[in-house]
Structure formats: C-alpha cells, structure tokens
C-alpha cells in the first residue's frame, strides 16, 4: 500500500473520502488561534480602527493611481510582445485562502490552507501572498489543501536574478525562510541584496514575482560553484492569508487583429488558426 501511494496517485480518492473524517481534528486544533484573532479584533479600539481605515484608504488611492499607469504599461507590453510573436501571461486570477494553524510534520515544510477542491484548486498551483511566492499546492482535499513551501528540502523553483536577468534554480534548505542557489558558476555576477524573482520557466509559477533576496555568498577555493544563500521574501511565521494563482497563459495573436485590446474571442480564433502549424 505504501508503495502504491508512493508510486502512483491511485489512492488519492481514498484520501479525499477519509479527509472529511479527520478534518474536524484539524479545525479543532485551529480553533484557539481563530478565537485569539477574533478576541484581538474585538479588543481593537475604535480610534485604532479609524486610523487604520484612513491608512488603508490612502494606500488604496495610491495603489489605484499606480495601477492606472500599470495598465497602460501592460497594454504596451502586450503590443510589443505581439510584435515579437512571443507568448505573454495575460493576467492572473486569485482566490484568497487562509492558513490553518497546524503543524503536520516537523521534517517537512508544509502548511494547510482552508480551501480545497471545492474551490477548483489544483495540484501544482502557485501560492503567493502580498510579499511574494510562498509555495505550491501539493495535495488538494475537499475542504483543505496542502501547500509545500519553497523552503522544503524537496522543492526547487526556477528563478531569475532581477538585476542581471540570469536564470537559475533556487532549492529549499529545510531551514525556514532560507533558500540555496546551488548552480551558480564562479564567474556569476551576483552580490548580496540581489532580488530573485520567478522566471516563469517550468510553467508552475507565474513570472515576475519576488522570491527571495541573496543574503550570503561564499566562494571556497576548489569549488566549482558559488555557495549562495537567500532569504525568502515571505516570512513564514507571518503568513496568514494565501493567494492561489490561476495564470492565464495564452499566445498573443501574431498580428493585432483588432486595433483595440485583443479580446478573448479573437485570441481563441487565432489559436485555432495557428494550431495546425
């Protein structure tokens, strides 16, 4: 049975049938932290809330103003990509889930989110928050899903060094909030503080989200590669909300069919048109 589960995915349905039985236990363990959150929200004074509200409104105005520019840029970028005939991520959709506070196994970095297959989450889906990449979904159950953090020893993420555009792979270390970059040649242009973003290669993670910043570099003589460590953008202990990403990867039409922003229908058309190639 262990071997079957290890080699195949066949036992997944047993797991999803049985998970509602044990789900109450997870909920039960999560309750104290929920209650404490609820109580602390009750105890917040109204002046604090007012202040927070003002700050949020200000932020929202600023972000909206920035977004205006971003939209124009995105359109321009899409047009340019279309000229170059390369595909471009049209946009991403998110669903918000929150973390269930349980500790499954001290040897692996996995967390549980409170949304599952009922929200059409799928295995391999990228999970981010407002700071950057958190990890990917490794298992979807009806009421919950399991997210493997990028710092898990069995996890590797394709990244790009933001400053130079160099692409490489960051591997989890099994230590919280730390990644290692094992495949950097000695002459790589890299220095502490460099931002690492997702490169979008591999298709799991959407391109351009921050992953980590380089913290230490050590070159020991005789070693072919630089030993680089990076601090993840997301601090694991501060995760409360998770965003599950659907990225919509569709090829841009070679010639802009319409003068306006290409609509979904026109994209589908060109897609079917180019398929025989």
């Amino acid at each position, binding site marked *: 049975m262990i071997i079957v589960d290890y080699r195949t995915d066949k036992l997944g349905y047993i797991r999803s049938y049985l998970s509602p039985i044990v789900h109450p*236990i997870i909920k039960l*363990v999560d309750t104290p*932290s929920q209650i404490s959150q609820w109580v602390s929200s009750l105890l917040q004074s109204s002046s604090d809330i007012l202040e927070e509200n003002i700050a949020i409104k200000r932020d929202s105005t600023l972000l909206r103003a920035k977004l205006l520019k971003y939209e124009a840029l995105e359109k321009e970028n899409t047009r340019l990509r279309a000229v170059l005939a390369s595909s471009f991520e049209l946009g991403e959709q998110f669903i918000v889930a929150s973390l269930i506070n349980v*500790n499954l*196994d001290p040897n692996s970095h996995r967390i549980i989110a409170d949304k599952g297959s009922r929200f059409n989450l799928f295995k391999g889906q990228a999970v981010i928050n407002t700071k950057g990449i958190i990890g990917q979904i490794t298992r979807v159950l009806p009421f919950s899903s399991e997210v493997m953090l990028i710092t898990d*020893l069995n996890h590797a993420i394709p990244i790009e060094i933001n400053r130079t555009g160099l692409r490489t792979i960051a591997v989890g270390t099994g230590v919280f909030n730390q990644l290692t970059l094992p495949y950097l040649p000695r002459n790589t242009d890299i220095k502490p503080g460099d931002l690492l973003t997702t490169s979008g290669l591999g298709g799991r993670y959407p391109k351009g989200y921050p992953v980590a910043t380089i913290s230490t570099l050590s070159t020991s003589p005789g070693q072919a590669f630089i030993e680089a460590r990076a601090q993840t953008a997301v601090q694991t202990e501060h995760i409360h909300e998770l965003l599950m990403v659907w990225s919509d990867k569709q090829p841009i039409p070679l010639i802009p069919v319409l003068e306006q922003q290409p609509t979904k229908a026109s994209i589908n058309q060109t897609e079917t048109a180019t398929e025989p190639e």
Partner: protein
Amino acid sequence: MNTPIHGTFIISLSFIISMAVSIIPVPDTVAIIMPSWTLLTLMYWCVALPQKISTGTGWLVGFLFDVLTGNLLGLHALIFATGAYLSHRSYSQIRNFPAWQQAAILFVFLLFAQIASLWLKQTNGQFEINILSLTPAITGALSWPILFTVLRLTRRRYHVH
C-alpha cells in the same frame, strides 16, 4: 448505558485528542522532540484492554493519522500496527512492571517505531536525519508514566472495559 459503545466512544475520543495534540502548532525545535502521542495512547489501550484493542485497531488509527498528516498512506498504519502488536504481545508482562520499567520497555518499542518511520519517510522525500530525530523515543518513554496515569484514571472513571 450501553457499555461497549460507551467504551468505544471513550477510546476513540482519546485517539482524537491525541491526534489533535500531535498537530498543535508548536515551535519547530519543540516539534522535533515531541513524542508520538497517538502511538503512546494506542500502546496504553493495547496494554489495558488487550481483548479489545490490538493490531487491527492500530492499523486503522495509523491509517487515519496518515490521512490527517498527509503522509504516505499506510506509513503510520504499518508503524502503529507494529507498535500495537509489540505491546499487545507483552501486555501481561508490561502490566506487572513498575512504571520506570514499563517506560524502559516502551522506549525500545518507540525507538524501533521511530527508526522505522524515519526510514520509511526517507523514501518519500529527503530530509536531515540526526541524533535529534530519535529524541521522540526518549520523550515518549519519559511521558509514558504521566500518560499512563491519566488514561488509567479516565478508564476507571468511565468504566471502560
């Protein structure tokens, strides 16, 4: 009151609580040395009610534990069944021992279970194994007298036979 159903309820409740305790969020350093509460509870019931709880129950509980923690299905089932078998086999001896001697025997069982579990988990994904990985056996043996007392009081209080 229907005694068999009542007893089963108490036993399942103890298993549920032990599972809940095993997944309580604690700092990582504590999590590494936490004993397997569910296995200890299972071993207690094997010693206390050998006619009721044995290898089959162990397997079932382990299976649910696997579903709960998202481990390979059957991993804990195998380990819990083995642990249940070991303690079920020697329940008449364990019962007559003083607490520290029980803890010593349980330590051997737990060590065996821990090594087996680490070895099986290693097949699923790599992680670091060091001497600290074996501490759950020690802490498990140390917490055995407490757990034993608590569960015995519960058993006597609710007349579980």
